């Protein structure tokens, strides 16, 4: 193993020697610099490996040949080696990335970089306080140097502010150090500190000076304006070095000084750190400059890790994993994002849409965003998970909540940004040019995200149990994304089919139902994919990621596995949804509700794990504390996915704007994830009470209201797919209501509806999708008379809506009938009445689908429209067959579900005799109902057909009664605003009050952000004032006075 002193010798020696080379030898200087940094990286990484695998023990370097405290010593321990590796690798790849810029700037630029990295190395290793001060000065001067590598009025003024701030901080540090020496007689951290009690006050203040100076270097809110200005002004490649290398080293200094810090200091660190995390993310909401935004995020992430250090008492032996995984995520993601920013070189995040010129960059961008936010399978996922678990276990609920809220805020701006990049019109300009020296670092850091994720999975105590195969299968599609659709589609179907076959023997009960919906349903909707031509880049990896997450939910045995799968599903579905043409905002709101929901679930799981020795899902049943709270958190979390009223606003847009085969996936399959979650929750926790009020009772009301309002809003839609989307909200309301009944019949109904909803919603979305595919519009008033052109589609829609509306004879009726029985049994008549009312409203919108789209006159421009493509029809007809089977033989569906429920709800089951189902309130025979209804249907049909011959033909756009040319032609269409009278009567119920509420929430937080960020006035003196005030305030808080 190479002695650590060579880190210093090589970096510094080469830096000194480079001065000999003049301008003509710049190339040589560049190569030598890279080689030196590679050497330094090699030393530190080999030490890290050696110490990790236990082949090495920590080593101490004694300079000048004397023992400490008489001379300065450097320590190479495990933590040091870890941080050194981070710093040196950042230096190596950062230099490589900047290679061409540096080459233009000359030899001095390489010298400055080498010295910066050298300074950071010593900062990490040194055990001497004054030595720490000297090398901190070196790195801050070198930082001031690299800031102006791209000299510009803004960088110069940012550099000046930076130097002033670090100068003052260094002065305070120096004061602290010298008084520390005075009171303790040593400067060495390894020396035993002798303090007499008289000097106690003095040494605490001296320590306070030292620690606060180091903290200010970490750029805590609000004393960080100087740092943010630097981030904004410098190009990405340099911002990367500051955000990763420098910040990591300073973070380590804080950690290193902890052993000498007084206990109160931990609380200070926590407050400052998490406060910074929260406020940085809040203020970033209003930020539009990419680099400054990354700066806010950087400062916030470092704050989070600082907070974690402060909370280390509560984290037990998980502290290392948590801190390291959060740091690695920050490190890789920030490096990548700053680099991308350096390549794009834009001043507004909206302009990042140019990134679409280069798919690899776009991929990396989204990869780093997901990494930063702690999505699986990346390291921060485990870090955040463990952090939340440990915080809950030690009762730190305030910090737990603050961390989750701040993470959500972080999600807001990162996903908005990602959405801009993926969807906005790209501004004209020069094509992107990415050099090989920029690809290499980006590629390596991109790969490292997966490698570190893999290791984090192994290191996490339960993570290694997670089944990564489906996710790996999905991600594998990124590698074969160049293949044409039909190959990928076949592979995807085969893979999912095989996986279902593989799981089948172990499945029973709810797992069986839901894995059938997820996988078989998935295959059915994927069939439509054959209709697409070309490559459909990005579709398969993300769609399969969603399915991997869905099936992971079923397979999950522990809360961690469940949460893992939940996040994978969310990530995959986000990409599916954002594929739609106008999906940018909808995908964002989908993501935010999902993230919020996921954090609630995380909080719920963490509370449930308090005082329990395992994390299997069954701990929900045995949670000793806070059971109602856990129930509420989890229920709300799952209800974000089922789009219950109040949490539904993301759904209509997301589902309506999605692609033809994505709409059925997200609407008929994805929503069931929430249902599955609720089932898992309710079956384990049963009925919980808030005071004397049953939470299930509240849920039943929510379900009923959701059903009514969802259906009502569906009735007033003019957009066919949006109509279907709202109808999903309504149906999910039924399901929620059924689950809330918490009885055999209620659950039988809920699950039967869940299955049929999958069938008819997939059917309808595919059918309407087929229409939209041909007509290129979703507005219903532009359609009409398509029965002649698309008869097959018409038949599926007809049957689909009959099922949907719960009209006998098809399977929807079965659900209704059972529902009624269940309601009578539970005596929840008000909610039951609402549910029936909702059923009536369902007629209204079902009618519109048939009437406006397929009946009436055919538009001129549609005279030559063809039937929907075969591959869109094919899945519809397969579903039709299943629907018919379930309708004619309803017990083929209901009986197994009933059997499945018996272990949980032994009472109140239906009794089956042939096709007779008997409840305590009556009996019902599906087959006979079918015959009767078909007969009535035929009679009515014939009568209509007979009457229709006398019908008066009306022009579709009838402007006879209009005095002028209509401003909006659709207003004269007979089917536009069809339910105007109803709208007058009960339309107020469908007012977008909830949308307004969330709008206010969003505007409010943005307004607060706008208000607070005024403190960063750009004036260097104001920043210094903030630093001084910060120091004084922290002092007052931590010592409770002077």
């Amino acid at each position, binding site marked *: 193993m190479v002695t650590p002193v060579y880190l210093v010798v090589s970096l510094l020696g080469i830096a000194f020697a480079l001065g000999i080379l003049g301008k003509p030898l710049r190339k040589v200087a560049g190569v030598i610099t890279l080689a030196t940094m590679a050497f330094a990286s090699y030393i530190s990484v080999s030490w890290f490996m050696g110490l990790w695998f236990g082949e090495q023990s920590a080593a101490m370097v004694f300079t000048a040949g004397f023992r400490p405290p008489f001379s300065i010593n450097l320590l190479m321990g495990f933590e040091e080696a870890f941080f050194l590796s981070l710093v040196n690798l950042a230096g190596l790849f950062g230099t490589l990335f900047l290679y061409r810029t540096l080459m233009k700037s000359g030899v001095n630029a390489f010298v400055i970089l080498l010295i910066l990295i050298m300074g950071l190395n010593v900062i990490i290793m040194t055990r001497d306080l004054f030595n720490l001060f000297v090398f901190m000065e070196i790195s801050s001067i070198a930082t001031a140097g690299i800031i102006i590598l791209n000299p510009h009025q803004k960088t110069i003024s940012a550099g000046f502010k930076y*130097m002033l701030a670090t100068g003052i901080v260094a002065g305070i540090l120096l004061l602290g150090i010298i008084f520390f*020496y005075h009171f303790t007689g040593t400067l060495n951290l390894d020396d035993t500190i002798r303090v007499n009690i008289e000097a106690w006050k003095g040494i605490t203040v001296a320590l306070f000076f030292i620690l606060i100076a180091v903290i200010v270097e970490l750029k805590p809110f609000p004393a960080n304006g100087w740092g943010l200005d630097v981030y904004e002004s410098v190009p990405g490649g340099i911002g990367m070095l500051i955000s990763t290398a420098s910040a990591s080293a300073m973070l380590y200094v804080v950690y290193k000084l902890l052993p000498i810090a007084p206990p109160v200091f931990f609380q200070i660190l926590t407050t400052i750190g998490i406060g910074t995390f929260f406020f940085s993310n809040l203020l970033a909401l209003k930020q539009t400059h990419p680099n400054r935004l990354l700066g806010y995020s950087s400062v916030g992430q470092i704050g989070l890790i600082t907070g974690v250090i402060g909370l280390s008492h509560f984290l037990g032996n998980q502290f290392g994993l948590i801190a390291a995984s959060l740091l690695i995520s920050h490190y890789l993601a920030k490096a990548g994002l700053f680099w991308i920013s350096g390549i794009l070189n834009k001043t507004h995040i909206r302009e990042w849409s140019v990134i679409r010129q280069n798919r690899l960059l776009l991929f990396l961008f989204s990869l780093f965003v997901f990494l930063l936010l702690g999505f699986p399978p990346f390291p921060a996922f485990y870090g955040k998970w463990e952090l939340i678990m440990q915080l809950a276990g030690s009762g730190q609920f305030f910090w737990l909540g603050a961390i989750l809220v701040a993470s959500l805020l972080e999600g807001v701006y990162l996903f908005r940004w990602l959405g801009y990049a993926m969807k906005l019109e790209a501004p004209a300009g020069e094509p992107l040019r990415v050099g090989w020296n920029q690809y290499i670092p980006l590629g390596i850091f991109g790969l490292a995200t997966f490698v570190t994720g893999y290791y984090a999975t192994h290191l996490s105590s339960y993570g290694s149990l997670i089944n990564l195969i489906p996710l790996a299968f999905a991600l594998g599609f990124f590698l074969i994304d160049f293949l044409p659709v039909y190959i990928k589609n076949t592979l995807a179907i085969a893979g999912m089919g095989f996986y279902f076959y593989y799981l089948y023997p172990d499945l029973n009960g709810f797992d069986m139902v839901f894995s059938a919906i997820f996988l078989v349903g998935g295959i059915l909707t994927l069939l439509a994919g054959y209709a697409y031509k070309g490559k459909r880049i990005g579709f398969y990896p993300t769609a399969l990621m969603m399915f991997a997450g869905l099936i992971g939910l079923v397979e999950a045995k522990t809360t961690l596995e469940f949460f893992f799968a939940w996040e994978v599903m969310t990530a995959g579905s986000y990409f599916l949804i954002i594929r739609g043409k106008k999906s940018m905002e909808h995908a964002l709101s989908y993501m935010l509700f999902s993230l919020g929901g996921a954090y609630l679930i995380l909080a719920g799981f963490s509370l449930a794990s308090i005082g329990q020795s395992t994390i299997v899902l069954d701990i929900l049943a045995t949670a000793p504390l806070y059971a109602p709270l856990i129930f509420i958190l989890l229920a709300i979390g799952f209800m974000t996915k089922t789009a219950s009223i109040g949490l539904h606003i993301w759904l209509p847009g997301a589902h309506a704007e999605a692609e033809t085969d994505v709409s059925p996936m997200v609407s008929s399959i994805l929503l069931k994830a929430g249902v599955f979650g609720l089932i898992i929750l309710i079956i384990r926790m049963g009925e919980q009470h808030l005071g004397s009020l049953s939470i299930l009772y509240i849920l039943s009301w929510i379900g009923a209201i959701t059903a009514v309002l969802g259906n009502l809003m569906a009735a007033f839609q003019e957009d066919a797919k949006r109509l279907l989307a709202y109808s999903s909200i309504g149906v999910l309301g039924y399901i929620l209501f059924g689950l809330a009944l918490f009885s055999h019949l209620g659950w039988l109904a809920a699950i039967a509806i869940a299955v049929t909803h999958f069938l008819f919603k997939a059917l309808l979305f595919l059918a309407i999708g087929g229409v939209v595919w041909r007509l290129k519009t979703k507005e219903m008033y532009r359609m009409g008379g398509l029965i002649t052109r698309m008869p097959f589609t018409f038949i599926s829609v007809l049957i689909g809506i009959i099922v949907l509306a719960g009209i006998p004879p098809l399977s929807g009726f079965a659900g209704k009938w059972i529902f009624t029985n269940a309601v009578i049994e539970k005596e929840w008549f008000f909610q039951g009445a609402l549910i029936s009312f909702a059923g009536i409203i369902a007629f209204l919108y079902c009618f519109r689908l048939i009437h406006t789209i397929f009946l009436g006159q055919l538009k001129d421009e549609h005279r030559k429209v063809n039937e929907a493509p075969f591959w869109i029809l094919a899945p519809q007809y397969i579903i039709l067959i299943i629907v018919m089977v379930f309708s004619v033989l309803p017990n083929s569906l209901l009986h197994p579900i009933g059997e499945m429920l018996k272990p949980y709800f032994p009472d109140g089951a239906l009794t089956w005799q042939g096709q007779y189902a008997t409840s305590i309130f009556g009996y019902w025979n599906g087959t006979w109902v079918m015959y009767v209804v078909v007969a009535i249907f035929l009679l009515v049909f014939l009568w209509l057909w007979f009457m229709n011959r006398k019908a008066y033909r009306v022009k579709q756009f009838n402007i006879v009664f209009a005095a002028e040319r209509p401003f909006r032609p659709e207003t004269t269409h007979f089917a536009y605003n069809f339910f105007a009278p109803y709208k007058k009567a009960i339309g107020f119920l469908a007012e977008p009050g909830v949308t307004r509420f969330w709008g206010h929430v969003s505007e409010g937080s943005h307004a607060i952000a706008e208000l607070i960020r005024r403190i960063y006035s*750009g004036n260097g003196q104001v920043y210094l004032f903030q630093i001084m005030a910060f120091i004084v305030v922290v002092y007052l808080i931590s010592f409770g006075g002077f």
Partner: protein
Amino acid sequence: MHWFSLEYIAMNLGFLLILIGLWGIITRKNILRIIISFSLFDTGTHIVIVAIGYIRNRTAPILDTLALQKDTASKIVDPLPQALVLTAIVIGLGVTALLLVYAMKLFETKKTLDIHRFNDLKW
């Protein structure tokens, strides 16, 4: 009464200079004046450090006489803070020089030394 001794005067003088420097850094508008204040601040910390190493009735830690070479520990002032100040002074020079060059460049960009004019970066 002990306030009137060399080391107390030096110590308090150092802290006063630090405060004066800070006051100047934050209230003066002219960038050069800010840098001057910064160097006062620096000088203040140096005086404090030297004062910490001072021990009354002893001599400088230079063993140029034979008498000093015996029983040295009871005859000299603390050499360590002095060594630290040496380093700190040189560092201070580096920082000050760099600040001045920055100031020069700042002046070139806007033809003013008023720090309030350099606030394009904000929020």
